């Protein structure tokens, strides 16, 4: 150390360098949406946002992501419970399989779902004569969301289960609680933080899903068009303001979710 008390030039230099590197990669692209989206005034931004198709796309994204989140959190809880409480042959294989969907390109996920549920898919072919159409509906979007966000909640909840002391549950049992009472009163409260962050992660990821959704939804405006699909469609049609308005909403939304995750984590996990 050359400067014991004096000015250390490495400090502002390294911080400045970090910010400079992030400029073209993160900050400027985000800034551009806001500049483009609002450069014709807030009134036109508001009008673009309130267009019926835009409102529908946002609503559809929220609703489909909500149901995918509900399912994946419940499933993640159940899977984490089974896989951390019971040792059995093939357990690791199951853990890897659950984690796999995030590693698969989202377009591949879309194709995979089509191959199963599509009109000529393995199951779809059997359902079609009964008038049951799964693909190109809101249900298909939920399925795609479930698939691509499958391991997120599980991945957050499982480690908490693993490190949770068994003696809490044993204490509850000796006190006289049934398994269900123990789960409800003892296990679940300890998982609160993990469940909330798992849900937020899943929801944020599902809202932004594009690759698989575009393949399975049919991308019908006002029927099966989610917010990211709307942005893509409007951009292709040259309606930059319309695309930008939704983009701003989605960007702010993600920012909010991750802020909550970052700052609320400690609060949620307080013992």
């Amino acid at each position: 150390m050359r400067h014991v008390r004096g000015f250390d030039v490495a400090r502002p230099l390294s911080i400045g360098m970090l910010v400079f590197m992030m400029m073209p990669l993160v900050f400027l692209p985000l800034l551009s949406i806001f500049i483009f989206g609002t450069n014709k005034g807030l009134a036109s931004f508001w009008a673009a946002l309130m267009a019926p198709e835009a409102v529908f796309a946002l609503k559809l994204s929220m609703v489909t992501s909500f149901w995918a989140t509900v399912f994946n959190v419940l499933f993640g809880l159940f899977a984490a419970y089974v896989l951390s409480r019971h040792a059995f042959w093939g357990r690791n294989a199951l853990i890897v399989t659950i984690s796999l969907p995030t590693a698969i390109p989202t377009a591949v996920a879309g194709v995979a779902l089509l191959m199963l549920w599509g009109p000529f898919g393995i199951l779809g072919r059997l359902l079609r004569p009964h008038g049951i159409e799964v693909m190109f509906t809101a249900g298909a979007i939920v399925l795609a969301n479930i698939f691509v966000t499958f391991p997120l909640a599980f991945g957050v909840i499982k480690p908490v289960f693993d490190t949770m002391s068994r003696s809490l549950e044993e204490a509850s049992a000796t006190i006289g609680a049934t398994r269900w009472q123990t789960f409800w009163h003892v296990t679940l409260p300890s998982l609160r933080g993990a469940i909330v962050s798992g849900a937020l992660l899943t929801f944020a990821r599902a809202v932004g899903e594009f690759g698989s959704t575009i393949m399975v939804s049919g991308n019908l405006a006002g029927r099966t068009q989610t917010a990211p699909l709307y942005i893509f469609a409007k951009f292709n049609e040259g309606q930059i303001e319309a695309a930008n308005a939704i983009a701003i909403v989605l960007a702010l939304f993600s920012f909010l979710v991750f802020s909550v995750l970052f700052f609320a984590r400690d609060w949620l996990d307080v013992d």
Partner: protein
Amino acid sequence: MAQVVSVMDNKVNPISNGSATAYAASIVGVSKLFGKTSVLQNITFHVAEGEALVLLGASGSGKTTILRIIAGLEQPYTGKIILHNKDVTELPARERGVGVIFQSYALFPKMTVEKNIGYGLRIRHRPRKEVKKTVNELLQLVQLEEHRKKYPSQLSGGQQQRVAIARTLAYKPEVLLFDEPFGALDAQTRGHLRREIRALLKKVNVPAIFITHDQEEALELGDRIAVINVGNIEQIGTPAEVYNHPATEYVATFLGAANILDAIVRKDRIEVNSALIPARIDEKFKDGETVKIVFRPEDVLLSKTPLPAGRACLSGGIVEQTSFVGAYERLRVRLDPAGGACETGDNPYYLTTETPESQTAKPIIVTRPKPEAVEVKLQRGDRVFVGLNAFTILPKTSRPK
């Protein structure tokens, strides 16, 4: 007078099947295997109403497994658990009504003190009024009224333990099981809490089983102590019985310091190191049989002059090391290779610091209370006469039949 004792008979009363007994808890013939390893072999003991029994053993002795089997957290391979005349062996933990105080206390972290204490009643769907009343009484009993709204993480170790006890007392447990209750606490808090818990148990009159590896804790907490070694009960008895009359070498050495010497039975005497000491010999020892004698460091008598007649004189010896340990002085004494004649002191084979045997002769550990250590100063190289105030004769093979 030399007080001479023989081995205590440590037979356990077999439980009479089906008939009513005064026992709060009975563990009958319990054994347990983990895989192919046997961790408990035919364990039988009983706990009387209001009694505190301590299971004392080293880690890995199987004592925790016994506790978990009583609680229903582990199934025995053979044997029965009977609580107040009811066979609960097949019942799950939650139907046994046993209170377990875990080593980590296992308080529910997201519940306040009062919620923790009321948990047992709430899951039993008792009326809110009753829950509140019981919780208030228990808070008062364990003196935590001002902490009722706090969370476990805001309490000290001792306070957490009191919450854990109150939480089990709420549903009036058949028996309380304490798993290494003071393991996580510092030495000072331990002693204090021990006395507090003992007083509390006497007040509520609930039978308790403690598990510990700490002999001091066992002696202070237990009405009776069961010494467990590799899945067997070596001895069960009151603290005084187990300490003063250990049934086996293991019990003798595990419960405090003990000196062990080889000896031979000679009619109404016992021959140790060529000294003949008068002793009351148990019938089970034959004349001429090789045995062991066990004696505590504090039961050794050291004198610079020949011992008065009538004292059980063991040998002459030489002080090798002295150290001051607070309340008493600890000495290591090497016994003369051929003791004998220590009443008179005319022993041609006595040790000095120069004799080569001073490195090899049998050493014993002696403790003397402070007043005695001050009055008769001893230092390295001093010749002493060694007498015994009390000792126990044990068979050569350490395990009782």
